[in-house]
């Protein structure tokens, strides 16, 4: 039934379709997971930045201890507390010392002064008045006599013994991370003052953050009474596909986010190719509109062609080539195996049995050894043979060598392959045209009287000449009954009964006439086949006539009958070297 091979083709088709389906599913799944992961990553990025700023505040607060315990700073603060107006020398001494401490502070923090604003240090007395300061980027607007910081909650806390951090926003655009410590001058006494460290969030700060976290970050100020969002600092990892160049942010986007306004964390926003999350910065900046954004770009695969286009060498190396090749080889071998099992082997078996059959080693094809459609073929062959046997057997199929039989064939027959060694008949065609049968004389001698009107196809026995006509009408019956004819197809249904005319003819010596008519019909058929073969081989047929043809056949038949002592001669048309040729087969029975 060829189930295996056919089923294998189905498997291959389904597998191919499944592979394509899997590809699309994989792409969609990749994109979906990528998007989901990106959202998780952004949430984590937000936490990372938040924790970085917390840890950073702790580091700065710890480093600020070198200022809060410094003797000179403490002494100057105590001196300031004792005066209604802070003396200038106290201010100068404090400023000088803070400048030295700022460098030490930067050494402890390790990320100060890298192209950005250095750390700002302030010393404040118990009333909140600034005794001294360094590296304050607004020093040009400061008047020493009125410069205070005590009203900020951070400083107020420090003046009450608290360590804490805060974030300030100044002028709607500058963000500062600030930490403060109390300065204790005497044991058991309230703080004499406080020291404050201030770091502006500029690009260098963002760069430091990015170097440690690999998170693209953007600091902004969305002042409640401002005229839009202003960016304070930004930083992007070197290998990131995120860019804040030309990025703009609509303040309404943040104002419309209820979660952002109430809890400080926005939902994820898709702005252009980037997905962003916004968070308000903890501190006094919460009210002032300061925040930071983290961003990621979702990389999705548009279609299957982008899979290979986006793959790098490492991706390609990740393919398990052994498994892939193994699957391919397994598929090939399974397919070939199924074909061999279902096609090759049964065909070989049939071929073997047919060979034995042809050699006479067995009388029929052994159906038990055949399988599938080959068993049916064997059955048909056996049936055909049995039918032939039932008819009495056919003529021998052994081909006769016309050259051996009829003598040498002319080396260059004129425009014809019909060259089976007939005696040269130089007489040209009576028609005057090219004689396609130069070997055939116009009177192919000695033959029985040819029918006068062969024009009508002799296939129909009614058409032939008057005498053989009745015989031709029954020609199939005696042939089938006497096994004289072969290759006529299955005439069994026609053999009903020997016609009375035939029986009468047999009794009256008309058998020869019947045989002649039968032979004439065969020759007519042979002639038509010959003409057809010449046409097929591209040889001219002009001038060919059945009269010449049958005369030549008759002549050859007589020679063969005499030579082989046979009763009949069968002529068969075949192609030889691209030309039509005839084969004569002597039949003794």
């Amino acid at each position, binding site marked *: 039934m060829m189930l295996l091979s056919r089923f294998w083709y189905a498997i291959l088709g389904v597998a191919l379709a499944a592979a394509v389906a899997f590809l699309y599913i994989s792409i969609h799944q990749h994109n979906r997971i990528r998007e989901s992961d990106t959202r998780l990553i952004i949430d984590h990025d937000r936490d990372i930045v938040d924790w970085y700023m917390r840890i950073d505040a702790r580091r700065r607060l710890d480093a600020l201890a070198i200022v809060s315990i410094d003797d000179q700073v403490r002494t100057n603060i105590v001196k300031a507390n004792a005066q209604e107006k802070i003396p200038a020398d106290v201010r100068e001494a404090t400023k000088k010392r803070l400048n030295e401490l700022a460098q030490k502070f930067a050494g402890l923090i390790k990320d100060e002064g890298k192209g950005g604003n250095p750390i700002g240090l302030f010393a404040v007395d118990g009333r909140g008045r600034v005794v001294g300061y360094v590296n304050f980027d607004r020093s040009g607007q400061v*008047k020493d006599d*009125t*410069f205070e910081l*005590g009203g900020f909650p951070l400083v107020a806390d420090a003046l*009450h013994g608290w360590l804490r951090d805060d974030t300030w926003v100044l*002028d*709607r655009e500058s963000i500062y991370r600030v930490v403060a410590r109390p300065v204790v001058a005497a044991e058991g006494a309230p703080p004499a003052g406080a020291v404050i460290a201030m770091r502006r969030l500029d690009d260098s700060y963002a760069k430091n953050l990015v170097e440690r976290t690999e998170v693209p970050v953007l600091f902004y100020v969305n002042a409640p009474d401002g005229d839009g969002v202003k960016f304070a600092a930004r930083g992007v990892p070197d290998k990131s596909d995120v860019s804040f160049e030309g990025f703009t942010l609509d303040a309404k986007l943040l104002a419309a986010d209820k979660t952002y306004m109430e809890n400080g964390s926005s939902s994820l926003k898709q702005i252009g190719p980037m997905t962003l999350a916004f968070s308000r910065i903890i501190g006094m900046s919460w009210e002032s509109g300061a925040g930071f954004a983290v961003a990621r770009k979702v990389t999705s695969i548009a279609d299957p062609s982008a899979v290979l286009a986006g793959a790098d060498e490492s991706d390609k190396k990740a393919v398990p080539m052994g498994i892939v090749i193994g699957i391919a080889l397994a598929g090939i071998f399974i397919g070939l195996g199924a074909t061999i099992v279902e096609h090759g082997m049964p065909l070989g078996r049939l071929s073997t049995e047919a060979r034995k059959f042809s050699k006479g080693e067995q009388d029929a094809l052994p159906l038990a050894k055949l399988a599938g459609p080959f068993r049916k073929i064997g059955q048909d062959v056996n049936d055909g043979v049995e039918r032939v046997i039932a008819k009495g057997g056919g003529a021998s199929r052994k081909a006769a060598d016309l050259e051996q039989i009829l003598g040498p064939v002319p080396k260059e027959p004129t425009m014809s392959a019909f060259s089976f060694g007939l005696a040269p008949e130089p007489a040209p065609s009576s028609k005057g045209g090219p004689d396609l049968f130069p070997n055939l004389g116009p009177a192919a001698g000695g033959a029985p009287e040819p029918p006068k009107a062969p024009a009508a196809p002799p296939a129909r026995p009614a058409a032939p000449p008057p005498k053989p006509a009745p015989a031709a009408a029954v020609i199939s019956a005696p042939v089938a009954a006497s096994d004289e004819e072969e290759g006529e197809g299955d005439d069994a249904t026609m053999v009903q009964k020997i016609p009375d005319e035939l029986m009468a003819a047999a009794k009256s010596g008309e058998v020869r006439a019947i045989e002649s008519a039968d032979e004439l019909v065969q020759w007519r058929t042979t002639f038509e086949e010959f003409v057809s073969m010449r046409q097929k081989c591209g040889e001219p047929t002009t001038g060919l006539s059945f009269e010449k043809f049958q005369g030549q056949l008759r002549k050859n038949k007589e020679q063969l009958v005499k030579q082989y002592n046979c009763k009949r001669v069968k002529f068969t048309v075949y192609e030889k070297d691209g030309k039509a040729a005839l084969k004569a087969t002597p039949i003794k029975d």
Partner: protein
Amino acid sequence: MRPRRIHVLRSPVAVALALLLPLALSMGAARAGDLKARVTGFENLRPSALASATAADKKLFTLREFDPLVPPKYTTITAKPDKDITLAIYGAGDKSAFGLGAVIRLAGGRAVPSTVVIPPGVPIFLRNDDPFIHHIVGPDLSRDLRPGESHKLEPKGKLLTFTDTLVPSVKAWVVVEDGVIANRWPNPDGTIRIADMADAEYSIKAFFEGTPKSTVTFKVPPKGSVELKEPIAVAPPAASSGGK
């Protein structure tokens, strides 16, 4: 739309004059004696701006912890008497004692003083002494004050509250009452000393964030001084103290 700036007072000298002129005028010709008194209870008051800073749920800081070198009794955030407690003096005199008007400085991230009490018709000057911009919002007011800038306004109403949208710790109150001749502020330790007061009867109201907390009445004798035996208590004593 921001209101039109009425007046800009840039000179510190002008500010000093504005503060001292009422004293000179109110004490008039008949200067007699001094007042000594004391304000108590301020340690139990917490300025609202600073109180909000200690509320962790508002996410105003990421870390806040007390220094172990500081005794806990000092870690409570309290009002500053010299900035948060305003003594409004009622008695002989008129509104001309305020001179050009009352001044509220925006300095150090807060308003100094946080409360002023003035008679009707006395203007208020809001002056920015910080090196950064303030944006003051109040009745009929919403404007930026750049460093060194002042804004003059005529208060309308009994109590006016001003806030800062850029520096939330800035809050100021203006109380308008008849009969007020001057404002005074205690020393940082809560003591009060007012010199050269004319012999007359006076009342003092102590205000905190626009609200009167205590009132005392006294008489300054001719050529004599007055020392109030009872302190001016702006808040009842706290049951216990602790760091907050």
